[in-house]
Protein backbone atom coordinates (compact mmCIF):
# COMPACT_ATOMS: atom_id res chain seq x y z
CA UNK A 1 0.00 0.00 0.00
CA UNK A 2 1.50 3.33 -1.02
CA UNK A 3 0.97 6.72 0.58
CA UNK A 4 -1.96 7.69 -1.60
CA UNK A 5 -3.80 4.47 -0.90
CA UNK A 6 -3.20 4.90 2.80
CA UNK A 7 -4.50 8.46 2.72
CA UNK A 8 -7.61 7.43 0.81
CA UNK A 9 -8.11 4.50 3.18
CA UNK A 10 -8.13 6.81 6.20
CA UNK A 11 -10.66 9.13 4.54
CA UNK A 12 -12.80 6.11 3.65
CA UNK A 13 -12.60 4.79 7.21
CA UNK A 14 -13.72 8.13 8.64
CA UNK A 15 -16.59 8.36 6.15
CA UNK A 16 -17.64 4.82 6.99
CA UNK A 17 -17.54 5.70 10.68
CA UNK A 18 -19.93 8.56 10.03
CA UNK A 19 -22.28 6.32 8.06
CA UNK A 20 -22.15 3.73 10.82
CA UNK A 21 -23.03 6.31 13.46
CA UNK A 22 -25.97 7.49 11.38
CA UNK A 23 -27.22 3.91 10.92
CA UNK A 24 -26.81 3.17 14.64
CA UNK A 25 -28.73 6.32 15.53
CA UNK A 26 -31.80 4.93 13.75
CA UNK A 27 -32.12 2.04 16.18
CA UNK A 28 -34.72 2.34 18.93
CA UNK A 29 -33.25 3.56 22.20
CA UNK A 30 -29.88 4.28 20.62
CA UNK A 31 -27.58 6.49 22.72
CA UNK A 32 -26.14 7.92 19.50
CA UNK A 33 -27.94 10.97 18.10
CA UNK A 34 -28.40 11.37 14.37
CA UNK A 35 -26.33 13.91 12.45
CA UNK A 36 -29.40 16.10 12.15
CA UNK A 37 -29.89 16.10 15.91
CA UNK A 38 -26.22 16.94 16.48
CA UNK A 39 -26.37 19.82 14.02
CA UNK A 40 -29.68 20.95 15.44
CA UNK A 41 -28.28 21.16 18.95
CA UNK A 42 -25.10 22.84 17.72
CA UNK A 43 -27.19 25.46 15.93
CA UNK A 44 -29.18 26.32 19.05
CA UNK A 45 -26.58 28.86 20.12
CA UNK A 46 -25.46 31.87 18.13
CA UNK A 47 -21.89 30.56 18.00
CA UNK A 48 -22.93 27.17 16.74
CA UNK A 49 -25.29 28.55 14.13
CA UNK A 50 -22.74 31.02 12.81
CA UNK A 51 -19.98 28.43 12.84
CA UNK A 52 -21.95 25.76 10.99
CA UNK A 53 -23.26 28.17 8.35
CA UNK A 54 -19.80 29.71 7.88
CA UNK A 55 -18.36 26.23 7.38
CA UNK A 56 -21.03 25.39 4.81
CA UNK A 57 -20.40 28.62 2.89
CA UNK A 58 -16.65 28.08 3.00
CA UNK A 59 -17.07 24.60 1.49
CA UNK A 60 -18.85 26.04 -1.51
CA UNK A 61 -16.36 28.84 -2.01
CA UNK A 62 -13.40 26.52 -1.55
CA UNK A 63 -14.47 23.87 -4.07
CA UNK A 64 -16.23 25.95 -6.71
CA UNK A 65 -15.43 29.66 -6.49
CA UNK A 66 -12.40 31.80 -7.14
Amino acid at each position, binding site marked *: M*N*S*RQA*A*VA*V*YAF*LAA*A*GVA*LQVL*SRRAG*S*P*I*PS*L*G*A*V*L*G*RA*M*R*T*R*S*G*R*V*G*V*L*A*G*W*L*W*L*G*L*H*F*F*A*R
Partner: protein
Amino acid sequence: MLRRFRERLHLGVDAAAVVRRAGLPRAGGLWQTRVVLPRPRSALSHGVDPVTGRAAAGSCTEEGASRRVGFTNPVVGILLLAGLFDGLSGNPMGGLLLVTVGVGLARSRAEAVSNPDAGGFTPRLRRPVPWTRTWTAGCVIGGYGALAGTPARFSWPATAAVSVAGVAVLVLAGRSAARYRAVPPARPAGSAAWAAVFVGIALWELVNLLLQPSFTTGSYDHPTLSVLADPMLASTAGRSAALTAWLGAGWYLVDR
Protein backbone atom coordinates in the same frame (compact mmCIF):
# COMPACT_ATOMS: atom_id res chain seq x y z
CA MET B 1 -7.49 52.02 55.15
CA LEU B 2 -8.57 54.02 58.21
CA ARG B 3 -6.08 56.74 57.25
CA ARG B 4 -7.56 56.92 53.77
CA PHE B 5 -11.01 57.08 55.32
CA ARG B 6 -9.88 60.02 57.51
CA GLU B 7 -8.35 61.77 54.54
CA ARG B 8 -11.63 61.57 52.70
CA LEU B 9 -13.26 63.15 55.77
CA HIS B 10 -10.70 66.03 55.73
CA LEU B 11 -8.70 64.91 58.80
CA GLY B 12 -9.34 65.70 62.43
CA VAL B 13 -12.68 63.97 62.44
CA ASP B 14 -13.20 61.47 65.19
CA ALA B 15 -13.24 58.23 63.21
CA ALA B 16 -15.06 56.37 65.95
CA ALA B 17 -17.78 59.03 66.02
CA VAL B 18 -18.16 58.79 62.29
CA VAL B 19 -18.40 55.05 62.54
CA ARG B 20 -21.08 55.28 65.21
CA ARG B 21 -23.11 57.79 63.19
CA ALA B 22 -22.76 55.69 60.02
CA GLY B 23 -23.81 52.59 61.85
CA LEU B 24 -20.85 50.67 60.49
CA PRO B 25 -19.71 47.55 62.39
CA ARG B 26 -16.51 47.93 64.40
CA ALA B 27 -14.32 45.85 66.65
CA GLY B 28 -11.69 46.72 69.27
CA GLY B 29 -10.88 50.16 70.82
CA LEU B 30 -10.95 53.64 69.30
CA TRP B 31 -7.60 53.43 67.49
CA GLN B 32 -7.79 49.72 66.91
CA THR B 33 -11.12 50.02 65.21
CA ARG B 34 -11.50 47.80 62.20
CA VAL B 35 -14.19 49.35 60.13
CA VAL B 36 -16.09 47.53 57.44
CA LEU B 37 -16.07 50.20 54.77
CA PRO B 38 -17.93 50.27 51.49
CA ARG B 39 -15.88 49.01 48.55
CA PRO B 40 -13.75 51.81 47.05
CA ARG B 41 -15.06 53.07 43.72
CA SER B 42 -13.33 52.29 40.46
CA ALA B 43 -11.69 55.76 40.43
CA LEU B 44 -9.68 54.82 43.50
CA SER B 45 -9.05 51.20 42.59
CA HIS B 46 -7.98 51.91 39.00
CA GLY B 47 -10.58 49.58 37.54
CA VAL B 48 -9.93 46.63 39.87
CA ASP B 49 -11.76 45.81 43.07
CA PRO B 50 -8.99 45.52 45.73
CA VAL B 51 -10.92 42.92 47.71
CA THR B 52 -12.20 40.54 45.04
CA GLY B 53 -9.60 41.34 42.43
CA ARG B 54 -12.31 41.49 39.76
CA ALA B 55 -12.79 44.28 37.28
CA ALA B 56 -15.04 47.09 38.45
CA ALA B 57 -18.14 47.75 36.40
CA GLY B 58 -17.53 49.94 33.37
CA SER B 59 -13.74 49.88 33.76
CA CYS B 60 -11.26 49.26 30.97
CA THR B 61 -10.27 46.03 32.68
CA GLU B 62 -13.84 44.73 32.37
CA GLU B 63 -13.96 45.55 28.64
CA GLY B 64 -10.73 43.65 28.09
CA ALA B 65 -12.07 40.69 30.06
CA SER B 66 -15.24 40.51 27.97
CA ARG B 67 -13.19 40.77 24.78
CA ARG B 68 -11.06 37.85 25.93
CA VAL B 69 -14.22 35.85 26.68
CA GLY B 70 -15.32 36.36 23.09
CA PHE B 71 -12.09 34.91 21.73
CA THR B 72 -12.06 31.95 24.12
CA ASN B 73 -15.06 30.40 22.36
CA PRO B 74 -13.89 27.20 20.60
CA VAL B 75 -15.97 28.01 17.50
CA VAL B 76 -14.09 31.31 17.20
CA GLY B 77 -10.78 29.49 17.55
CA ILE B 78 -11.71 26.96 14.88
CA LEU B 79 -12.80 29.69 12.46
CA LEU B 80 -9.61 31.70 12.98
CA LEU B 81 -7.38 28.63 12.63
CA ALA B 82 -9.17 27.41 9.51
CA GLY B 83 -8.99 30.90 8.04
CA LEU B 84 -5.27 31.06 8.68
CA PHE B 85 -4.52 27.75 6.93
CA ASP B 86 -6.91 28.52 4.10
CA GLY B 87 -5.18 31.83 3.50
CA LEU B 88 -1.78 30.12 3.54
CA SER B 89 -3.07 27.56 1.02
CA GLY B 90 -3.55 30.19 -1.65
CA ASN B 91 -7.22 30.91 -0.95
CA PRO B 92 -7.17 34.40 0.61
CA MET B 93 -10.87 35.09 0.02
CA GLY B 94 -11.94 31.96 1.85
CA GLY B 95 -9.48 32.66 4.63
CA LEU B 96 -10.68 36.24 4.91
CA LEU B 97 -14.29 35.03 5.13
CA LEU B 98 -13.53 32.66 7.98
CA VAL B 99 -11.42 35.17 9.91
CA THR B 100 -14.05 37.90 9.46
CA VAL B 101 -16.80 35.60 10.70
CA GLY B 102 -14.62 34.53 13.65
CA VAL B 103 -13.82 38.07 14.70
CA GLY B 104 -17.43 39.15 14.27
CA LEU B 105 -18.62 36.25 16.38
CA ALA B 106 -16.06 37.04 19.09
CA ARG B 107 -17.17 40.66 19.23
CA SER B 108 -20.79 39.61 19.34
CA ARG B 109 -20.06 37.34 22.30
CA ALA B 110 -18.05 40.08 24.01
CA GLU B 111 -20.97 42.48 23.67
CA ALA B 112 -23.33 39.84 25.01
CA VAL B 113 -21.07 39.29 28.03
CA SER B 114 -20.67 42.98 28.77
CA ASN B 115 -24.36 43.71 28.23
CA PRO B 116 -26.28 40.62 29.29
CA ASP B 117 -29.58 42.49 29.40
CA ALA B 118 -29.52 43.14 25.65
CA GLY B 119 -31.79 41.05 23.41
CA GLY B 120 -30.16 37.87 22.20
CA PHE B 121 -30.90 34.70 20.31
CA THR B 122 -34.18 33.32 21.69
CA PRO B 123 -35.39 30.50 19.48
CA ARG B 124 -38.99 29.31 19.61
CA LEU B 125 -40.65 26.16 18.43
CA ARG B 126 -41.81 26.27 14.83
CA ARG B 127 -44.61 24.60 12.95
CA PRO B 128 -43.92 21.67 10.58
CA VAL B 129 -42.86 22.59 7.04
CA PRO B 130 -45.51 21.78 4.38
CA TRP B 131 -44.44 19.21 1.78
CA THR B 132 -45.16 21.63 -1.06
CA ARG B 133 -42.50 23.97 0.26
CA THR B 134 -39.99 21.13 0.43
CA TRP B 135 -40.74 19.97 -3.13
CA THR B 136 -40.54 23.52 -4.45
CA ALA B 137 -37.21 24.03 -2.72
CA GLY B 138 -35.95 20.73 -4.15
CA CYS B 139 -36.84 21.73 -7.70
CA VAL B 140 -35.25 25.16 -7.31
CA ILE B 141 -32.10 23.65 -5.84
CA GLY B 142 -31.81 21.04 -8.55
CA GLY B 143 -32.31 23.55 -11.35
CA TYR B 144 -29.93 26.08 -9.84
CA GLY B 145 -27.28 23.43 -9.23
CA ALA B 146 -27.50 22.25 -12.84
CA LEU B 147 -27.21 25.81 -14.11
CA ALA B 148 -24.42 26.89 -11.75
CA GLY B 149 -22.35 23.81 -12.68
CA THR B 150 -22.17 24.86 -16.33
CA PRO B 151 -19.43 27.53 -16.05
CA ALA B 152 -15.86 26.41 -15.59
CA ARG B 153 -14.62 25.80 -12.09
CA PHE B 154 -13.09 28.81 -10.31
CA SER B 155 -14.42 31.18 -12.99
CA TRP B 156 -16.15 34.44 -12.17
CA PRO B 157 -19.62 33.19 -13.24
CA ALA B 158 -19.19 30.18 -10.96
CA THR B 159 -18.04 32.45 -8.14
CA ALA B 160 -21.04 34.70 -8.62
CA ALA B 161 -23.44 31.74 -8.69
CA VAL B 162 -22.00 30.28 -5.47
CA SER B 163 -21.95 33.67 -3.76
CA VAL B 164 -25.58 34.44 -4.64
CA ALA B 165 -26.73 31.04 -3.42
CA GLY B 166 -24.64 31.38 -0.26
CA VAL B 167 -26.07 34.79 0.58
CA ALA B 168 -29.63 33.54 -0.04
CA VAL B 169 -29.16 30.62 2.32
CA LEU B 170 -27.60 32.84 4.98
CA VAL B 171 -30.51 35.27 4.77
CA LEU B 172 -33.03 32.44 5.06
CA ALA B 173 -31.09 30.92 7.94
CA GLY B 174 -31.00 34.26 9.71
CA ARG B 175 -34.74 34.72 9.35
CA SER B 176 -35.43 31.20 10.58
CA ALA B 177 -33.14 31.60 13.59
CA ALA B 178 -36.18 32.36 15.74
CA ARG B 179 -37.71 28.97 14.99
CA TYR B 180 -36.31 25.49 15.48
CA ARG B 181 -37.42 21.90 15.52
CA ALA B 182 -37.62 20.18 18.92
CA VAL B 183 -34.85 17.58 19.35
CA PRO B 184 -34.21 14.93 22.01
CA PRO B 185 -32.05 15.75 25.03
CA ALA B 186 -28.29 15.85 24.71
CA ARG B 187 -26.45 12.52 24.67
CA PRO B 188 -22.82 13.30 25.46
CA ALA B 189 -21.35 9.92 24.50
CA GLY B 190 -22.99 9.87 21.08
CA SER B 191 -22.17 13.51 20.45
CA ALA B 192 -18.55 12.79 21.38
CA ALA B 193 -18.47 10.02 18.76
CA TRP B 194 -19.65 12.44 16.07
CA ALA B 195 -17.15 15.04 17.26
CA ALA B 196 -14.38 12.45 17.00
CA VAL B 197 -15.31 11.74 13.36
CA PHE B 198 -15.29 15.41 12.39
CA VAL B 199 -12.10 16.14 14.31
CA GLY B 200 -10.49 13.10 12.69
CA ILE B 201 -11.38 14.34 9.21
CA ALA B 202 -10.06 17.81 10.01
CA LEU B 203 -6.81 16.49 11.48
CA TRP B 204 -6.17 14.08 8.58
CA GLU B 205 -6.83 16.90 6.14
CA LEU B 206 -4.33 19.06 8.03
CA VAL B 207 -1.73 16.26 8.02
CA ASN B 208 -1.99 15.87 4.26
CA LEU B 209 -1.89 19.64 3.79
CA LEU B 210 1.34 19.83 5.77
CA LEU B 211 2.85 16.90 3.84
CA GLN B 212 2.31 18.67 0.50
CA PRO B 213 5.36 20.21 -1.22
CA SER B 214 3.89 23.60 -0.34
CA PHE B 215 0.57 25.00 0.86
CA THR B 216 -0.40 25.97 -2.69
CA THR B 217 0.78 22.78 -4.46
CA GLY B 218 -1.25 19.58 -4.25
CA SER B 219 0.39 16.20 -3.76
CA TYR B 220 -0.51 12.88 -5.42
CA ASP B 221 0.95 10.88 -2.54
CA HIS B 222 -0.68 12.97 0.22
CA PRO B 223 -3.95 14.15 -1.27
CA THR B 224 -6.29 16.53 0.50
CA LEU B 225 -10.04 16.39 -0.11
CA SER B 226 -9.67 19.13 -2.71
CA VAL B 227 -7.12 17.09 -4.64
CA LEU B 228 -9.31 13.99 -4.45
CA ALA B 229 -12.35 15.93 -5.68
CA ASP B 230 -10.57 17.47 -8.68
CA PRO B 231 -11.33 14.62 -11.15
CA MET B 232 -15.05 14.63 -10.29
CA LEU B 233 -15.37 18.41 -10.40
CA ALA B 234 -13.57 18.66 -13.75
CA SER B 235 -16.78 17.68 -15.61
CA THR B 236 -20.00 19.71 -15.86
CA ALA B 237 -22.12 16.83 -14.59
CA GLY B 238 -19.85 16.36 -11.58
CA ARG B 239 -19.92 20.06 -10.73
CA SER B 240 -23.70 20.23 -11.10
CA ALA B 241 -24.19 17.20 -8.87
CA ALA B 242 -21.80 18.53 -6.24
CA LEU B 243 -23.36 22.00 -6.28
CA THR B 244 -26.84 20.49 -5.95
CA ALA B 245 -25.66 18.47 -2.96
CA TRP B 246 -24.08 21.58 -1.44
CA LEU B 247 -27.26 23.61 -1.89
CA GLY B 248 -29.30 20.74 -0.46
CA ALA B 249 -27.07 20.74 2.60
CA GLY B 250 -27.61 24.49 2.94
CA TRP B 251 -31.39 24.06 2.77
CA TYR B 252 -31.10 21.29 5.37
CA LEU B 253 -29.24 23.68 7.70
CA VAL B 254 -31.84 26.40 7.18
CA ASP B 255 -34.41 23.91 8.37
CA ARG B 256 -32.51 23.03 11.61
